[in-house]
Structures are given as structure tokens and as C-alpha cells.
């Protein structure tokens, strides 16, 4: 993988996984993203992104938590990895740095 950076949607998903902290699987992530971003997201998009992030090493997963609601099937629960956390932090830093460089904002503050 050449591009180890995060896409915008990937970032949202990663954040959602962090928020859910141990409860993150396809649907819960989808809902979380929808709740915060206010846009509707396709389940397939969430799943593919989760797997892509796992491939990049930002997430890890295991199967657990079967419920009646799912016809007795287990969920794949995703956790964030240290490198995922690192990536998020980097993204956050880049943003903050850049935010601070916006002249209009400086003017508005002063």
C-alpha cells in the first residue's frame, strides 16, 4: 500500500470505532457515523472501509457476541490498533496546525 494516509471517510470510520470502544461492528459504526455526520451511509461502504483499514493495519478484529436478532450469527468487533491511533492523531495534528495558519480566523480572533 503506497498511501498510508487516511481518507475523509476512513477518518470518520476510525473515529467511530474509537468512540464505540469494543462495541464497533458494521451496523453500530454505520449508525455512529450517520449520527455525527448527519448523512446516510451504505452498509457496504462501511464494511469495505473497515476491511481496508484492517488491511492497512489501523484496525484489528475478532468475532463475538451472537444475538437472536442476527439469527444466531456472531459479529466482527473492530478495535483500533496503536498505529491506527497514531494515524488519527497525526491527522488531527495536521489539521490543527493548518487551522492555526488561516489568516481570516486570526483576524476574527483579534
Amino acid at each position, binding site marked *: 500500500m503506497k498511501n498510508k494516509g487516511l481518507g475523509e471517510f476512513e477518518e470518520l470510520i476510525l473515529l467511530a470505532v474509537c468512540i464505540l470502544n469494543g462495541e464497533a*461492528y*458494521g*451496523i453500530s459504526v*454505520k449508525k455512529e457515523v450517520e449520527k455525527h455526520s448527519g448523512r446516510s451511509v*451504505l*452498509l*457496504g*461502504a462501511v*464494511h*469495505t472501509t473497515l*476491511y481496508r483499514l484492517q488491511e492497512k493495519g489501523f484496525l484489528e478484529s475478532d*468475532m463475538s457476541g*451472537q*444475538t437472536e*436478532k*442476527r*439469527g444466531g*450469527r*456472531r*459479529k*466482527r468487533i473492530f478495535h483500533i490498533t496503536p498505529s491506527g491511533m497514531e494515524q488519527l492523531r497525526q491527522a488531527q495534528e495536521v489539521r490543527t496546525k493548518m487551522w492555526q495558519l488561516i489568516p481570516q480566523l486570526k483576524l476574527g480572533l483579534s
Partner: protein
Amino acid sequence: MRRRNRNEPPTLANWLLSKLLKDSFHEELLGDLQEIYQERVSSRGRWFAGFMGWLDVLHLIIGFGSFRPFRGQANLFFMYKHYFVITTRNLLRNKVYAGINILGLALGLTCCLLIFQYILFEYSFDTFNRNFDTIYRVVETTFSDGKEPYPSGRTGWAIGPALENEVPEVKHFVRMHPEYNNAVVSNPAQPEKVFEEKDVFYTDASFFKVFSYPFILGDSTRPLSEPETVVISESLAKKYFGEENPIGKTLSVRGWIVGTYRIEGVVEDPPKHSHLQFDILLPMSDLLKKSRFNNPSTAWGWTNFLTYVQLQKGSDLNKVNQKFSEILERNQKDKWEQSNITKKVHAQALNDIHLNEEIESPRSLISSYRSVYFLSIIGIITLFIALINYVNITTASAFDRAREVGIRKVVGALRRQLMSQFFFESTFTILIAFSLSLAASEYVKPHFNELIGTTLPSLLSINSHFWLMCGGLFLLINLLAGFYPAIVLSIYKPINVLKGSRNPSTHRSWLRQGLVVFQFAASIVLLIGTSVVYIQLNFMQNMDMGMDISQILTVSAPRVLPEETTREKAVESFRQELLKLPFVEKVATSDAIPGGGYSFTSSSVKRIPEGQSENVPCAALWIDSTFAQLYGIELLTGDGFKQVSLKAADEEPYPVIANETAIYALGFDSPDQAIHEQVDISNGNICRIVGVYKDVNWASTRFHRQNSFYFMGAGLPHISIKIGTENLANTVSKIGEVYKALFPDNPYLCVFADDSFDLQYKNDQRFAKLFSVFAVLAILISCLGLFGLATFTAQQRTKEIGIRKVLGATVADIVTLLSKDFLTLVIIGFFLAIPIAWYAMGQWLEGFANRIEIGVEVYLLAGLVAILIALGTVSWQSIKAAMSNPVDSLRNE
């Protein structure tokens, strides 16, 4: 089947997902889908949940599938473009192979497509009726001892109303009565417009309720319900009234009943795929006024009507048939006991009528399931021969592509990819052939129509079924023709190919050889078939008929007569006038002309006193006293009609002349013994035999000669004129002048006796022609293939030939060397063809009363022709190779 759980997402979508995605994904994805489905059901309803479920599944399949049409690494567009370039390059480089491949396939496909259209057309008969699936024709089947059951579409007039009254399943009935002897029709306003019309029917007012023949003009709500009204077809309206509006005008029809009818409606001409072809429909009530129909005994027994019924939807046919039979039995039981027969009734589906030739159906367009099957088989064989060409040439020339395959594999192509490349190539070639043949089939359709005797609609107006079948055919051909070459071509091991070992796929050539054998076996069978059909036809037409029908003009007697005269007198005066013409030798009249059937046929004639002979069937014909002389029918014994006065001919016992066959069938030992004996024809007509004629073939020589009896009459409806000059065209118009002068209100209808007799052979001739066309095509396509293979072999062995020539081989040696293998295949094919042709043609000949023995020379000739053609094809290439200068072929090493 397990009922779908209310809370499960769409089953089909789930199945699709589980088939297309790796197992490791199943559990969590299906689980998620189900969970979200339930939530959506409770929040937005099932429809929304189902829809979104599908959307999610498709999205997941695209996202996780191992195939990734939208995000694959390779760009498919460029790949196909590359395939396309390679394909066209290859086609252009090997123009000969490409030409043979495409041409052969296109020829075979053209046949196949035409036959497809023919089959669709034949099966589409009568389906244009809105209610065709509930309309049936009433068929009465007669069972009598020792004879095959005889099903017939003829019924009495009373069965229709009885069925409607007594069987609740019957919604409507329609009776039709054809004008069996045609009718003379004229427009009273324009007396010169007088023609004979044959598609004239009497029918019930319910006709238009049951069938769907749309009205163009007039009141479609209650046609034919009043007496003396008529509904005519569009083309008939044009013929008699031109562009005028015919509604309310009158038409004079002289058929079995004579009358002037008010035109109430004009309908579109019946479509080509209607088994009923009518021009004039007259009210049934007018016909039933005839005194003959008042007699209750004729109501059921006089079976000249066609009866159709429309049943309620979903009726049980078995029950209906049983009820029908019971009704007929109740009304006919005593009659049956007299003549020792029983009858059963069944309802025949409307769209079965056209193809079911087993059932007698007067005045219907009849084809047969047999001819449809026969043509399908021929079409499939031709297609196969063409496909074999394709497979053979493609695999034979595979070695040319071996290096390409090797390189591709070395660079990393998978076998699967190579196969898809070669599949693409064959699809492309087949597509070209397919488009060519679609155009060609349209171009030759008029000739095909003439050959088969149908009127196929053009491709533009054909229904969607055809295109569906075309698509299916295209896929099938792709599979059959593309699969094997793709396997063969992609199998090469790069190490062998690139090392340069030249062993073209000889180990696989047994299949190729087998296919060539099959091609030629099929072609030779068709060749033998063609010659057998032609020999048989020739034999039938040149058989001694026992009478001479050459140079005889037959004219229909006038139907519209001046007042105060009878047909007898009119014909007599016509005869007197004719005999004044120098070229007229004899004039005679009869009830029918050769090939035109009899006056009546009966299932029973027996000797009197009873018990001396069995009941035998017979046919009877009225002739006048000069008829036999005119036709050269030999009187074997007795006085014939010479001594019989017309008055005596009309009194019991009627004087009759029998033919030889009848005499022997009735158990007489010799014609002389039968003279003055009495027979009872058709239960109750006592006749006295006054002479015995030599047998003649009154109908096609395809059939056995029938037991016949000739009654004497005069002034009968068909006038035969023996002409003593070769200038026939002139005589026709001269006789016409006499006719028109005497009977100005009648159409002058004449035909030469031999021409009208030969009409009976029209179908056989058509069959022969069809057979020969297909035989030629099969041979042509096979030879194309052979030519391709020969070219290929010659190329492969250029070096070998060069070396042989250097070492002293002659041209003849080399030609033999190259041709031998192919000829062996053709000869094997020949030996395979013999038993098949022998069996098939033996079956075909079974249908003929007078048939040829297939001599050895027929087989040998067909085989020889095939071998010679094959030899010619192969040796062209062989000679070219053999003549080449060895220097050219050996130089470049």
C-alpha cells in the same frame, strides 16, 4: 419448501451473496444484513427494508467479490480492444480460412434461421384469435371392425346446438359449411364482374363472437343474423366494388343455393396464419332452409359441417369429450347398429388443426407435424455440418497460433485468460456470420417461400419469439463452436512450443477426422435421398395410368343458365357447337376430372343376393357415354353404356360399370363373370353391372387404385374436350369464344387435364426440390471445410513435399499422398451413410402405393459423386502443392 421467515432479508439476495462471496465473510455480513433489515422493517416498512436489503447486498458483493468489475487492476476495455485487434489481424492474415469459416457458418445459419422462422410460423397458426386457447373444433372419429379409426372434422348440423344446450362448459358454437363446389359470384350492378369463388362458407352469427377477424366496414355487432346478408373480405370487396363502399350493396352468389345478398360488413382478409381462409360468409340460416336439412335423419348423419365450440375457461377436456360422445351416441345409436360402426367425439384445440394432418379437415390450410420435424432435422444437420467446419479449421490451424500462446503464457497469461481470448475470437467470427446470414435469409426468403409453399412474414414484422430464439441459437453456437478450439488452443505448453518442436496437434486429429466422416455421411445421405425422391417422382409421373390425359381441355359447365333451359340442354348445345370446330375430336362430360376426386365414396358395396361377398368400400363417379372413349379407358367386357338410354340409367337397378379392382374385391373370378350381376352400393342402391373397365389411376399414383363404379349421366358439370392439334394456346381462346357466346353470364374456367392432374404431385415435387437444395448445401459446406483442411495440410507439409520432389517423387505421387487421407474419410462416410439412407428412404417410400426399389446404382452414384467432388476439392490444393518448386520451399532454412 420452508416458508420465509418474516424477519429474514430477501432470500434470493442472501443466496446470491453466499454464492459470490468467500465463506469467511458470510457470518458477519449476513448477520449485519438481518439485523439492519429488522430495524428497517420496524421503522420504514417491509418494502423499504427489502429494497435497501437488495441495495446493500449488491454493494457488498461489489465491494467484497473476488471479481471486481469496477475496481480491478486490469483495464478490461483495453484488454478487449487488444483481443479485437488480434482477432481482426488473424482473420485478415488467413483470408482463406477466415472466408471458409465465415461463409460456411453463414450458409448453415441461413438455412437454420429460415427453418426457424418456418417452424415459428407453422406453430403460430390461429393464435391470433383472442380466445384461441378456449376454442376447439368438434372431431368425430369413426371406429369400424378391421379398420383404422378415421377421425374427421366433419359433423352434422345438429351437434353444435345440442352441445350448447346440453353441455354447460360450452359457451358458444359456430358451424361452418363450405361451398364444396365453389360458387359463381357477380356484382349485379356490373354484370361483367363475374368470377368463380372457392372460399365461400355458410356460418352462424356467433362466428364473430368466437373468432377474431376484425371488421373494416359495417356493423360488427350482429352480422349474419338476418337472412340474405353477407360479410365479405377486404380483397373480395376490392375485386367486385373497386374503391366504392360496398356496405348496403348486393352481391349475387350462385352456389348450392342461389341468392342475392346484402353486404353487411367487410372484414380484413384472414391472416396468412389462419387455417380458415374465407372470402364470403353467408348466413347459416339460409342454408338450413333447404329441404334436405328438414329431415331429422340428416341432422346428425349428413356430415358436411365444421363445428367449433368455445368452452369456458378451465374446462376439463376429458369430461367435455365424454359428454360430447354421449350426446352423439344418444342421437345416432340405431344408425350405427345398422352399419356396424361406432363414433366418438373429441374437441381438437384450435391451434392443433393446422398441423394435425391425421384428421380430415375440409377447406383448411393443412400442413403436418411430420414436415415440421423433417425440416427441423435437416436444419440441425446443416448447422452441424457448418459448425464442424468451424471447429475443424480453427483447431487445424491452431499450430499457427501456438507460438503466440507460448509467448503469452511465458509473459504470465493464465489458461483462463487465453480461453477467454479465443472465445472472444470465435464470438466475433460467429457474429459476422450471424449478421450475414440474417441478411441472407431475408434476401432468399421469397425463394424459400416458393420452395416450402408458405408465406413467411418479413424479419421486421416477426414477433419477439424469433429474436429470443436467435439469441439462444447464437449462444449455443458460441458454446459448441467456441469451446473446443479454446481448449485446444490454450493447452499448448510454452516449453514445447518455444523449443520449436513441430508436432501440430496430430494426436487430436481423430476427432477432426471423425467430424469429417460425419459431415460426409450426412451429405451422402442427403444425396441418396435426393436421387431416391426424384426417381420415385419420375416413376410416379410416368406410370401407365390406364388412360390418356394429354391434349384434353376441361371446362366447367355453366351455372348461370338462361331461362327455360336445363344444364343438360345447355351442355348439349355447347357440345354441338364445339364439334363444329375443326380441332375438336371428342367432347364428354363427367362429375369430376382425373385427380379431382369422385362423386361420392361409400364404405359399403356388396353383392346381391347377400352373403356372397364382404362389404368393401368403393367410390363412384357419374360419366356420360363418350367419356371412356375420350380418355381411352379400355372396356374389358360387357356393352358399357352404349345400349343404355338416359331414362334407363335413372331407374333401379341402375346400370353401372365397375373397374377390375372392384370386381376382384367383390369376389368375382373374372370380369366376364360379373356381367349382369347385381350389387348394392351404399346400402340400398341396387345396381346392375353392365361392363368392366380396365383399372385407371384416377387419383395420384401415390395411392392404390380404388374400387370404383361408374354411373351414367349426361350434361355433367365438367366438360372434357379432346383436341387434335398441337397449337393449344389458340384452341383455348377459340373454345372460350364459343363458351362466352353461349353463356355470357358465366366465368370461362378451363384447365388442361394433365396440368390439373399434375397438381397432385406439387407437394412431392416441392419435397424433391427442397431435398435437393439441402443436399447441395450440405455438400457445398462440407467441401468448403475439406478445402480448408487440405489447404492447411498442404501448407504444413511444404517442406516434406519439397524433399520428396528433390528425391524424385512425381506430381502424381504427391497428389496421391495428400489426397489419400481425405478420400479415406469420405469413403468411410459413404459406408456409414448407406444403412442410414436405406432405412430412412425405405420409411419414406412406405407412404407410396406404387414405389420403386432402390437399386445399388443409386447408392454407388451418390457415393461416386461425393467422392469426385471431394477429390476435386482436395486435389486443387494437392496439385498446387505438388507443382511448387522445391527450391522455394527448402531454401529458407
